[in-house]
């Protein structure tokens, strides 16, 4: 079949570190082996305690296939639940030599019952290990934590910190308070201690706050866009609250929130800081310098300007060393590594974006 041949050739050419892959369990029963009996009972009796209504539904209905690639459904279970299909359709076909798991489904991130959230986070972490990373050495896990309780979150980080299968710590940028607030600082201290970066993937409704500053959007198309503005709020909170001054070794990757907004945000923050710095005297440098030193960004869903070369300009303003390729498999807005860039990258740029930046960021062997 011609498609298989085409994929094999591409796989030989381009080696990719994919910084955003979403694993999903077929049913919650997959978590049972990793939960104490009373939490299994609790899950069966009460279910999750989320802030949004219609738990189990998407808060914003999507145009097709519940927001998944239509061609990513396995014979049994939801997209992202079948390792063999993921291998065949994505890891093998797209030359993925290392893939970062971003387990969004019912970790502790969104759970209001904090003890239950801690149990779920731990279960999700065990499940990532046993059902994914141990079976497929190309995959790496992120430590899911019950972020709204720093004590529980730190305990989970410390439990996992020595395992090289976990390469980063995942928290939702849609938090109860802006992530710069001190209640989250113990998490950053723990991240710094164990030398693992923070992964902020757009997701969730845990904070219960509307996703835009002017209230809940009506349509998914607005909600999707709100992810990039939300990331700007999160980034400026982390910068202005002094997190990076207090934790100088912290590394942060923003996943799926876009990056084209970054240069304009930095110009604006720097200009304001010059005039208003007395309000935040704990900042010793221009805001953009903290950003340049501490933040990385994944590429998907990549911006598609009318003139593709404009994207190259933006990437050079952000910094070629700060962008890492991601696909978002198996979600609908997946970026194919062979098709994502509509302008010609140099061989060096290609190597950096598709592989080398991520290898350095995660310290991959």
């Amino acid at each position, binding site marked *: 079949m011609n498609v298989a041949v085409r994929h094999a050739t591409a796989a030989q050419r381009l080696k990719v570190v994919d910084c955003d892959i979403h694993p999903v369990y077929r049913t919650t029963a997959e978590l049972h082996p990793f939960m104490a009996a009373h939490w299994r009972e609790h899950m069966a009796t009460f279910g999750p305690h989320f802030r949004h209504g219609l738990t189990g539904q998407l808060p914003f209905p999507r145009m097709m296939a519940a927001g998944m690639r*239509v*061609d990513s459904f396995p014979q049994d279970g939801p997209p992202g639940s079948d390792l063999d299909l993921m291998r065949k359709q994505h890891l093998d076909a797209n030359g993925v030599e290392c893939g970062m798991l971003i387990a969004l489904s019912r970790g502790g991130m969104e759970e209001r019952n904090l003890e239950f959230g801690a149990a779920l986070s731990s279960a999700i972490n065990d499940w990532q290990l046993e059902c994914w990373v141990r079976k497929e050495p190309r995959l790496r896990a992120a430590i899911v934590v019950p972020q709204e309780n720093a004590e529980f979150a730190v305990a989970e980080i410390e439990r996992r910190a020595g395992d090289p299968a976990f390469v980063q710590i995942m928290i939702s940028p849609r938090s109860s308070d802006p992530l710069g607030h001190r209640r989250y600082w113990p998490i950053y201290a723990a991240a710094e201690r164990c030398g693992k970066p923070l992964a902020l993937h757009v997701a969730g409704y845990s904070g219960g706050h509307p996703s835009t500053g002017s209230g809940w959007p009506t349509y998914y198309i607005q909600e999707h866009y709100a992810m990039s503005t939300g990331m700007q709020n999160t980034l400026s909170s982390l910068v202005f609250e002094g997190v990076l001054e207090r934790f100088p070794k912290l590394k942060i990757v923003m996943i799926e929130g876009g990056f084209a907004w970054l240069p304009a945000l930095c110009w604006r923050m720097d200009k304001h800081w010059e005039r208003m710095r007395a309000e935040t005297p704990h900042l010793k440098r221009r805001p953009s310098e903290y950003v340049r030193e501490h933040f990385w960004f994944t590429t998907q869903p990549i911006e598609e300007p009318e003139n593709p070369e404009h994207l190259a300009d933006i990437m050079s303003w952000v910094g070629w060393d700060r962008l890492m390729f991601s696909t978002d498999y198996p979600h609908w807005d*997946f970026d194919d590594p062979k098709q994502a860039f509509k302008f010609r990258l140099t061989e060096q740029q290609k190597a950096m974006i598709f592989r080398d930046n991520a290898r350095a960021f995660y310290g991959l062997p």
Partner: protein
Amino acid sequence: MSRRVVARASEVAPGTCKIVTARGREIGLFNIGGEYFALSNRCPHKGAELCRGMIVGLVGSDGPGEYHLSREGEFIRCPWHGWEYDIRTGQSWCDPTSVRARQFQVTVEPGSNLLKGPYVVETYLVSVEEDYLVINI
């Protein structure tokens, strides 16, 4: 360019798509109310297998709060990013001037014609009683 027999007409029911391979190329065969069309199984936007998407109509509006569905079953929506293409022409709905899915000409031929040649029959034993889809490729 040659003419290839790629399917029995009866294998592509109205409102459905069948993906076939001809000269090493995957092609989606469509049937809209008895008329047959063929598009390359590759989305010109980002390379997805286009013909594995949903067959849909167009949602239009004359103003906020008004909706109407038209041309039902005449568009294929890409399984990845949801770009819609006119099955009859391959033309992209959201970028009609510069993006077009590759189209192939399809004809329906009775088996009795095909037996005379000069067609290339890849996988079918042609029988006189049936109709076949033939594409130029």
